[in-house]
């Protein structure tokens, strides 16, 4: 009985049907996705999914909108995402990319969302990434679209495109493609690191950069002239200028003479990402030396005075710790090569938790203990 209804729904969703019929059917489908049972029902039927996909460019705007909404909900569930990607007749990623590329498509934001949902689970992300790379508009093309404000003429902001791109940064291949020296991908993203208009976009971009910092091999390039990441990571953490002339001149240009109304990044999650990224760049000795030369300690010092979030304070202190010490004291070129014995690791984690709870810090004794252990 249910199957008959469902079959009927498929017929009603036919792209060449009557406008009002299609509209109602589409709305029904969208509403079904609101409930878990309805969602799993739709997911199980490839023909429904295909039918919905065909309606995303329907001339009736509400129909197409409902179709996109349905797809968003379906793709949000991992099973739904699997189902969509498994469709043989249509390539959902290609269809979505076409929607994004089309400057006149009104629901481009939904398309970005669908792609972001599809690429969130890690095992699916690789599949989506491969399809995008094989397609005409590769990652580079998408980043180019993202970098143009008001690309879409129908009001879609494409902020979620940033989320989609940041999902790719989960994959090593994705990161490597972004940081390809011959290409020009990562540099386009950098200017959005202080994009005030959308927290979502800002967060996604900074997350992408944060992930990219985990690739040690790329550190020299990231900290070099071409990208010059360090000042960009620090700018959101810097406040109004409180330094004298000499101190100012020792900083990178971006950070000099900041105006009195300079605001720091308001969201602690984002600040955390920034600090973690800076931490990653400190792994190698060369990286630490670059940071010391740029005298970022000053910025971190001021930030510490201002910061209230415990996690961020902790990260700040760790960072300063690495920068203040001389290389002799640190003694290790590459910190990622240090083997931390599991029990010490546990102790560190516990200690961190304690710090986060109470704000007290007994880091020094613990660090000394660790140094003793390693000797």
């Amino acid at each position: 009985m249910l199957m008959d209804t469902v079959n009927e729904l498929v017929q009603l969703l036919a792209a060449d049907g009557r406008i009002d019929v299609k509209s109602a059917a589409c709305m029904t489908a969208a509403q079904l996705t609101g409930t878990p049972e309805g969602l799993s029902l739709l997911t199980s039927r490839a023909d429904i999914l295909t039918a919905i996909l065909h309606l995303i460019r329907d001339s009736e705007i509400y129909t197409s909108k409902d179709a996109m909404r349905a797809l968003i909900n379906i793709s949000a569930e991992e099973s739904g995402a699997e189902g969509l990607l498994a469709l043989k007749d249509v390539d959902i990623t290609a269809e979505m990319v076409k929607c994004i590329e089309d400057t006149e498509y009104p629901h481009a934001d939904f398309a970005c969302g669908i792609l972001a949902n599809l690429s969130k689970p890690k095992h699916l992300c690789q599949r989506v990434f491969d399809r995008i790379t094989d397609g005409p508009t590769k990652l580079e093309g998408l980043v180019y679209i993202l970098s143009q404000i008001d690309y879409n003429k129908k009001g879609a902001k494409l902020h979620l495109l940033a989320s989609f791109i940041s999902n790719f940064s989960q994959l090593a291949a994705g990161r490597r493609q972004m940081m390809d020296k011959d290409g020009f991908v990562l540099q386009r993203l950098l200017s959005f690191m202080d994009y005030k208009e959308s927290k979502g976009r800002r967060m996604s971009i900074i997350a992408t950069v944060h992930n990219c910092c985990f690739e040690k091999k790329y550190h020299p390039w990231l900290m070099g002239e071409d990208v010059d990441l360090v000042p960009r990571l620090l700018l959101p953490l810097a406040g109004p200028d409180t330094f004298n002339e000499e101190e100012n001149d020792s900083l990178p240009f971006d950070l000099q003479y900041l105006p009195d109304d300079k605001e720091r990044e308001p969201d602690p999650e984002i600040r955390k990402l920034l600090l973690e990224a800076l931490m990653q760049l400190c792994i190698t000795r060369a990286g630490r030396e670059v940071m010391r030369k740029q005298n970022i300690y000053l910025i971190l010092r001021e930030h510490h005075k201002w910061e209230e979030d415990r996690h961020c304070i902790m990260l700040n202190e760790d960072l300063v710790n690495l920068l203040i010490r001389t290389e002799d004291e640190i003694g290790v070129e590459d910190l990622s090569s240090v083997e931390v014995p599991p029990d010490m690791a546990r102790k560190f984690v516990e200690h961190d938790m304690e710090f986060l709870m109470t704000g007290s810090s007994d880091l020094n004794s613990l660090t000394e203990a660790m140094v003793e252990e390693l000797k």
Partner: protein
Amino acid sequence: QHSALYIFPRCELLFHESKIEEKNQWPNTTRVTIHYNCYTHLEEEKYCSKVVKTRETSMAEEWKDKVIQEKLGGKKDWTDEERAELCRQLDEELESHIDAMGKTRYKGGWTEENWKEQMAEHPLFAPYIQEEGATQAEAPINPLSEGLAQLKFDPDHNTPEEVAQNYKEEGVLQFKYKKYRLAVANFSEGLKQKCSDYDLNAQLHNNRAAAHCHLGNYRSAIKDCEKAVELKTDYLKAVVRAVDCATKLNSWDEVFHWCDRGLRLDPTNQKLKTDRLTALKEKKLLERNARKMARDENKKATEEQNLINAIKNSGVQLGSTVLKGSSSISLSDLEPCHPAAQGSRVHFNESGELVWPVMLLYPEHHETDIIQEFPESDHIIDHLEVIFGKEAAPAPWDTEHKYQVNNLHVFFEDKEKTKLCKVDPNQTLQQVLRDPRYHVLGGTPG
């Protein structure tokens, strides 16, 4: 019958056999007279012409007969049409006869030596070499050039594409000769054709942009590059040119915009990447300098405000020469008017006290002295010691050396300028200034 005809150009004496005639005119003498049959010059001519005429007439007759015989089959009576036809035939024969004549060498052609100059001047090969600023209409144009120009550019004889192409070539030629304004004009004309060849139009825009660049019209050049890329989306050359123009204009945001577009077309393009980096650096420097300047100005403003506040709070009253009773004082009120005091406005010294420029007036001699830096905490008498003390030389106007320290009375004028109030020289400047009757004018206590 052929007669041997001799035509002699000049008169020559002919010897003929002469008859010897005896003429018995003279008794018993024998005279020998030789008669020559000679022709004189004129006679010769007459003879010749006569002979020729005869020949001609006979020739004409002969020929006529011949022609009539050959062509007309001996026909002797003619109609008008027949005559006309005959004329035509005769014309043709004449033509072919002339052609058959040997071709002679054409004199007046270009020689090995002068062909280059001749070619440069010849309108077919030479461009319009005109002075900058002259329009095409003003310059005297070789009619041949004009004719050629009309042929090339005449829309009746050419399709729009051809005309546009010709204008493009013309413009390129001008460009080579560094006549950039003319090049621009040519490219513009080419674009006016609105021909349907997008590529050609894109090239015209690009070329015009190049010409504008050389003229320093970077803004116009960028506009043309924009059009060029609109027509031909992968026109990297135009994009690069726009980057260069924007760089020349120091318009860094535009440089970014164009670099981004170019790098979309060619992500490996190192030049664009470098240009973008340079622009980034310049922009950062600009922004930083702007911030620094803003900061310095702020600082200055705050310091000035502090000074004014300090003076206000210390109870010193300022009188403005312009406006009496104004409550808000600005720094300009404190600017000394006296020339000698210029540049030593009241300020804070290291110990944080106010230092004033002070004017001493000597009404008796209509003289003044300026003490440029008089800390408030100093006693008046100390400064008087310096000026009028035992070690100091007397002032040039103090001829009687009357002005000695212990002899001096110091006064100030009260604010209504009605009377002089006595000042105790042992007081500090600060104490004097705070006297409610006292008014500091022009930032210079007097």
